[in-house]
């Protein structure tokens, strides 16, 4: 009878896994190469070991990255659900501008204005996409023009300085070294607690368990990285506030995508909207929700950016949508939906920021910078596709 003679399915199937991790390692390796190159190129009399990874420059690089990173987390949710948002750059300009203009109503009102504008725009564009069936590409392409027009109108083309010190500090301030270590301690404790809890849960469900050394490594490895990072940043006065903001957003995003039903549905919708619908999932609701999460994150990114620059110019945020999309895509997110992780998007954002920062350090011309970034984006995806075909 049918039952006895089963052979296990050939292991053709493990392929995706190895391909995915191979991809992650390749990207890390590429980042390593980029860092080594810029480090070597920035060796000078003042910085005999190179300037690029010097705490001062690294802090600067991470401050730049935090804006793109926050946008990329939100963008990832939308792309995973097979949507896109081209308007985020213009919304950064609008939200930042309105925040700067409303400083007169107090700090809270000013910050809240940016977040609320982001949420409102996310809700409008999400609703048009999900419920009016207008493709997200069109809705947000319209948004790109509309919101830029709105801020040009509101600001009358003028640049507005940021006066409130707390607003400014969002983009540039450093966390006191002691507080930095305290945060690191909390993060490490959280990692240890989650890792051990996970181990216990797997035992409870009768799943295969990894040995004690592997578990210990999973705690000690990240712990060392966190400690080293805070130490390094403290050498120049402390971890920048925007970096803490980005890390918080990224952890929340990773949690949302990996540990909530909402996240799972986004992957399901992006992977096969019809199958998701027939499994009882109301795709429209979750697509709207994804836009409504991206929106406030754009508002937050606008605050970080405006704070860092110290003023809101009406053309702020131009092309930021492309940086955010590029970060996701370099990090392995598929524009066809259903594939992509926050960790990948962060790696992508870090690669983009490293290229930006490094090329400025070694005085690469602006024109050349654009070309190199463009080539890197296409090459990264081309490499990914080639790897997948071979797989």
């Amino acid at each position, binding site marked *: 009878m049918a039952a006895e003679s089963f052979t296990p399915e050939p292991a053709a199937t*493990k392929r995706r896994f190895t391909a995915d991790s191979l991809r992650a390692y390749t990207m890390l390796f590429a980042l390593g190469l980029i860092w080594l190159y810029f480090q070597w190129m920035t060796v000078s009399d003042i910085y005999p070991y190179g300037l690029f990874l010097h705490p001062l420059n690294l802090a600067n690089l991470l401050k730049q990255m935090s804006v793109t990173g926050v946008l990329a987390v939100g963008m990832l949710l939308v792309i995973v659900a097979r949507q896109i948002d081209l308007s985020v750059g213009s919304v950064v300009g609008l939200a930042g501008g309105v925040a700067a203009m409303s400083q007169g109503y107090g700090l809270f009102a000013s910050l809240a204005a940016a977040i609320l504008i982001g949420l409102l725009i996310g809700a409008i564009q999400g609703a048009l996409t999900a419920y009016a069936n207008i493709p997200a590409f069109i809705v947000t392409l319209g948004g790109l023009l509309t919101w830029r027009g709105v801020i040009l109108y509101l600001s009358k083309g003028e640049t507005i300085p940021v006066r409130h010190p707390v607003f400014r500090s969002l983009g540039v301030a450093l966390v006191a070294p002691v507080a930095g270590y305290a945060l690191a301690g909390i993060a490490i404790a959280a990692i240890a607690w989650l890792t051990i809890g996970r181990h216990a849960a797997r035992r409870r469900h009768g799943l295969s368990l990894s040995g004690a050394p592997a578990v210990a490594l999973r705690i000690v490895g990240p712990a060392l990285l966190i400690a080293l990072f805070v130490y390094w940043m403290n050498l120049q006065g402390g971890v920048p506030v925007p970096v803490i903001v980005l890390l918080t957003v990224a952890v929340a995003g990773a949690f949302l995508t990996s540990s*909530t039903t909402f996240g799972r549905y986004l992957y399901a919708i992006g992977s096969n909207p019809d199958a998701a619908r027939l499994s009882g999932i109301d795709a429209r609701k979750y697509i709207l929700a994804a836009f409504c999460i991206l929106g406030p994150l754009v508002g937050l990114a606008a605050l970080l950016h405006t704070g860092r620059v110290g003023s809101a110019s009406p053309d702020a945020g131009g092309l930021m949508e492309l940086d955010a999309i590029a970060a996701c895509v370099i990090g392995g997110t598929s524009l066809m939906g259903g594939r992509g992780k926050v960790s990948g998007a962060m790696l992508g954002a870090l690669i983009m920021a490293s290229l930006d920062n490094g090329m400025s350090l070694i005085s690469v011309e602006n024109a050349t910078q654009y070309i190199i970034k463009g080539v890197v984006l296409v090459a990264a995806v081309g490499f990914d596709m080639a790897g997948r075909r071979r797989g």
Partner: protein
Amino acid sequence: MNAPGIVAPLLEMRDIVKDFPGVRALNEVSFDLRPGEIHALVGENGAGKSTLMNILGGVYPHGSYGGTMYVSGEPRRFTGVRDAESAGIAVVHQELSLVRELSIAENIFLGREPHRFGIIDNEALYSRAQAVLDELQLKLEPHVPVGHLGIGQQHLVEIAKALSREARILVMDEPTAALTDPEAASLFRILEKLRARGAGVVYISHKLDEVFRLADRVTVIRDGRTVETRDTSAFDKATVIARMVGRDLTDLFPTAVRHPDDVVFEARHVTVEDPNVPGKLLVRDVSFSVRRGEVLGIAGLVGAGRSDLLMAIFGAHPGSSSGEFHLDGRAITIHSPADAIARGIGLVTEDRKRFGLLLDQIIRDNITLAQLHMAGRFLTDVDAETAASEKASKEMRVKAASVFVNAGTLSGGNQQKVVLAKWLLTNPKVLFLDEPTRGIDVGAKQEIYLLINRLAEKGLAIVLVSSELPEVLALADRILVLHEGRLTGELEHAEATAEAVMAYATGQRHAAMEALH
């Protein structure tokens, strides 16, 4: 091996080896095709038939496999599909390669449109397409967009497209899976005509009746190896099946004694409108009920509205529909699949790749998807999900390295088991199965039959739609027959014969009224 070469083979594939990462899909497979021959290639899904034909068709170019291939005695090394096509090889895949927005004629000549200086000569295009259709005796209008055709007709267009290339070697992969009997019969006539003209046909099918009716020779492959090639006259079905599965399949349809209980689900006056053609009804005033522990079969030809009926009840039909539903005696309303699932209804759809699976997500996430939504929590518990999906896929005997493997990498039978596991995890009271064994191999089919019996024994009410009549006749306690959207007959298991069902299905008999009263 074969009769000594009276005629030089049209095609010879010798010692073909094809590796995929971690698995050898073909291991020294040899296959030949003579002019004027229909050569059936049979084997379970995953045995390597499609891989072999992809090598023949140039999908896997020379260099990506081992062994040699001779066409008309000359060694050939195809660099791609075009290359194979120009060598006179045409492959009709199981999956359609038609552009829905283009017309029948444009599809038939896609990529080789008659043109002058790069401008398409539409008169030539349509007159030539008409000629192709006429020759095949297909009553289709070449101007009609392919998207307007039914799935069976689309398959016929696909076949016409292949034949229009005047291929000398024609490969057909499960060509009748979506065809009605008359459509299949006209396909057989075409193939016989081609054979008479000296072309060679490779015929891949799970349907052994067809194989024995058509083929001159049969080659069985199993687990990437050629098991045996023989003249059809020297084979019998039982032997072929035994060679395919490597074991004797005594009774394909397990018998079960069932005692259906109270009515669980009742649908009254279901009517469904065609979303593309306003006013046209796909289902007209169909009523039925199904009992706890009962398997209710729904038979009918393609286009009779069977799938539309199930989709409409499930709240998933794109067209507008009406009807009353009762579950456990209480009236319920269903506006969306979510409603249906919440009430305890599950639907295994006809097209599992399009509607059933998240192909690029892992097995675990596929299995838990509907249950996850039903539970309505915000946080997932991935370890609980892993445990539950491992248990479910073990029960269903899903053949996979782990539940962390993408559903798209599985064979058809295993994919179907994943879909079934998904629905069983929601603990349904009523399970709709729409063509649950389409395109899956004999072994997996039997497992699904056993599962259907087991579920019915446990008290699940099952509605089974199938185009394979023997399946419905063997499994169903009661059979409803639809014809052009109407319920034309209802038969008890004991009185159901293929002839009786077909009489209702073709509209020759109407018993709906008597059966209902």
